[in-house]
């Protein structure tokens, strides 16, 4: 694998998943992984399997709901959809992310 890709910061996977699903989309696991890669211009790299514990967690927390459906190739797949609680969670995670990254940027910027 290309080592120039960056590992995603811990804890942000949740946010990325929610963000991906936010525009009222229903995607299955592989599509979510691809969407994250695509929108990040392949800069962020995930060990793709780790998406699944994150999805399970999001379901436990009630941020996502899932339903089994059929893919274009007529294969059974689980499609995830964001809930209102998930949207709220996304907002608060984005806000927190901005706060933290702004603070880090201030520290790193030359005085």
């Amino acid at each position, binding site marked *: 694998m290309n080592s120039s890709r960056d590992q995603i910061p811990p804890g942000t996977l949740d946010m990325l998943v929610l963000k991906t699903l936010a525009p009222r989309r229903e995607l299955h696991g*592989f599509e979510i992984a691809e969407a994250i890669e695509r929108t990040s211009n392949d800069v962020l790299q995930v*060990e793709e*399997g*780790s998406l699944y514990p994150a999805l*399970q967690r999001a379901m*436990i927390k009630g941020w996502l709901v899932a339903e089994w459906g059929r893919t274009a190739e007529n294969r059974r797949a689980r499609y995830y959809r964001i809930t209102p609680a998930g949207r709220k969670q996304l907002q608060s995670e984005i806000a927190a992310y901005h706060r933290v990254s702004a603070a880090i940027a201030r520290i790193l910027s030359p005085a």
Partner: protein
Amino acid sequence: MPSPLELVRRLRYLVLRDRYTAELEEEMRLHIQHREARFRERGLAPGAARYAARRQFGNPGDHQERSRDMWGLRWLEHAAADVRFAVRRLRHRPGFTVATIAVAALGIGATTAVFSAVDAALFRPLPFARPAELVTLTDVNIPFEQSTERFPEGRHSLDINDAVAMRDVFASTAAFAAGGLNLSDPTNPRRVRVGVVTSGFFATLGAAPQVGRVFTGDEGRPHGTHAVVLSNALWQQRFGGENVIGKPLDLSGTKYEIVGVMGPGFNFPNESDLWVPLTVPTTDEVFAPFRGYLPSWVIARVAPGVSVPVASARLLANWKRLAGPPTGKPGGVDEFIAEATTKGAAVPLKQQLVGDREKAFVILMGATALLLLIACSNVANLLLSDAASRRREVALRELLGATRGRIVRQLLAESVLLAFAGTAVGFLLSPAALGVLRAMMPGDLAGIAPAELNLRVLAFATVLALVTGLVFGIWPALGTSRNDPVETIKAGASGGATAGGLGGLWRALITAEVALTVMLLVGSGLMLRSLRSVLSQELGASADHVGTLEISYPDGVPKAQRLRTIHAILDRLSADPAIQAAGVVTDVPLRGGGNVAFRVEANGAPTSRSADGVPYARMLEASGTYFKTLGIPLLRGRTLMASDDSLAPRVAVINMAMAKRWWANADPLGQTFRFGGDTTLIHVVGVVGDVREISLENNALPQVYLPLDRRPPENLAVVARSALAPSALLARITNAVHAADPAQAVYNVRMLDDVIATAVAPRRTNTMLIAIFGGIALSLSAFGVYGVVSYGVSRRAREFGIRAALGATGRNIAALVGGEMAWIVALGVALGLGGAWALSRVLASQLFGVDSHDAVTFVATPILLLIPAAIATIIPARRAMRVSPTEVMRAE
């Protein structure tokens, strides 16, 4: 903070775990296939594409596991597996499992039952408002209406009015006495327990009536109206809880008006069915229905901020002021004050009520605690040998990659399971044990409040059993897993017999168990020997084949009529050829009532209390035939006669103790004495043998028997001796009473033997309980010895095989096994005897006719223990003798 919905989702997962796992797997499979397809679109070869896809995905097993962790239930799955495994293991060893559970349950059940009973009797606060404020006032009297006539020398103690006047010390003051009356009922005349109480009684205790009111001040004054307050129980029983206020109630021929009903559960004193007023000052009228005397208690509630010692000191100071300077007069107030100074003039009510029972209970509790300790050390022993036998298994699993934590959790599961099972059985056992205890416990051993299963005690015993189980189930195993597993396995079938300090721990446990058992056995031995010497005490009368019943004449039955019916009863009984003798007395021996004594002035001169005791004699009124009926020997002079009536000169029969006390060097016949402050001289006409009237443990006190015919008592016991069967005899006595008066209520219809059995019941119960505990402890210890020796034998089978191969005889090997145990038991016995020697002083107050360091007990007890211990050693030792060297070698 997981939301409720989240919990539901988690639980759903737990139930549908297999489906969830399969779905996740399917999802991940799909993902990898999609990724593989993408790589192939980019031109990778099929093999390389699959490899790359998998690599990019990571280990599916890992992700699967981490997903499951997300559900947070992995520990639960592990715990379930551990429990299943533990159950399987325990099922494979039913002997070990049942033994451990049974011993733990026994310890918990017995301890909980006994401690609950003791708790009710000793530790539970009295069921009154702010019970710590309640005190009894020592030697404070209730004035008698004509007190100057009764005490010509003037008052020599405080009376209740003095205490009432001390308002800054006592917020309220009251008096009570307990007695019995006949509740008249055309169909079912019955005897009821009566509390005779001053009008302030209920307020002092803080008890309010549920219906109506309690006594008014007017009802508490002499010759007031007759009011009665019912207990809730009697109200329900007899009136079905209907409105009874203002209705009449006939008690021993006197009409009372029902003014109130108390709340449920209030029955103080003496489980009263109802309460009638005790007037201040009191009168003959109050006393008459109660056998002429009513030992009364004065109680008070100390004022807020006043401590009991302060109240006591204030009361004593008042007393001294009343008495003035010491008179030096024999039997005077100085003696009372001296006594009150040492005893305390105001004593907490609870202390007074608990009284003598406290010692007996403390000892019973000590015995139970010993039993619990023995049971715990037995459980520890069982677990210890089990854990030791698992060393090899534990080591193997560790080598196979199990983590320490995992192994410990598994052992924990087993111990917890055992401990819980033991506790559960103990839980089930303890109410039954308490039931047995309640049935065994005579009324005066029980507390004011009934014994209930005490949950705190149950919790305590449970925690102790759990801790024992956990400590001894896990600690040895932990010790094991610290060893190098390779070494343990290499050590072979003996499972690391040489490793660790387990051997030492074991020896310590068995030594402790034996020592505790010896202590308990010595205690039981001393108690049993005391019981035997009490039972062999001479009553002074022969109680077998004597039936008795008691009757009370209602108020207002004239003297002449009472006398007529007494004689009618006696005539009818003596005419019966099956009845050898019949008599009448105010109280049969050991009945536990009538314990009042009067001051004696022999030949008209007052006597001081001295080394010979107080200058008092007890009084009974009896028919002349009473002595013959009970087999009380007439030693000098004559017995009482019907002609000793109110017209004849005053005469009395006295007992030997009285003759020795006052006329040791003279002929008692013809001597005179004044009795109870009465001015008339009484002539001694006869001397009879001593009878232990109060208790078998105490020597007979000076005793005066006055003729019945002079002043026939309102309350009396009829006695008759016959070879008839008890039921037939008692029926004949009852018939004789009813022939004289069909409406007469009879009560306490029983054989005199039963009266005596009741009197020794507390001692018998206590002794039996301690003896039962001793027996249980003995079998537990023998069981413990057996377990350790037989485990040792199986553990060392290889060693014995080698020894046998090298020429050791079976005898040598048995000696090897037995020798070690002999030392352990010997040490345990020595320690136990030492402990018992030190502790038996505690027991001293409960002993009778036996020294607390009684040689017989101290020698016999070890023998009693050594026999089962020897048997428990020999059985497995014989197994060691039969170890075949070839078999052991082959087993390797």
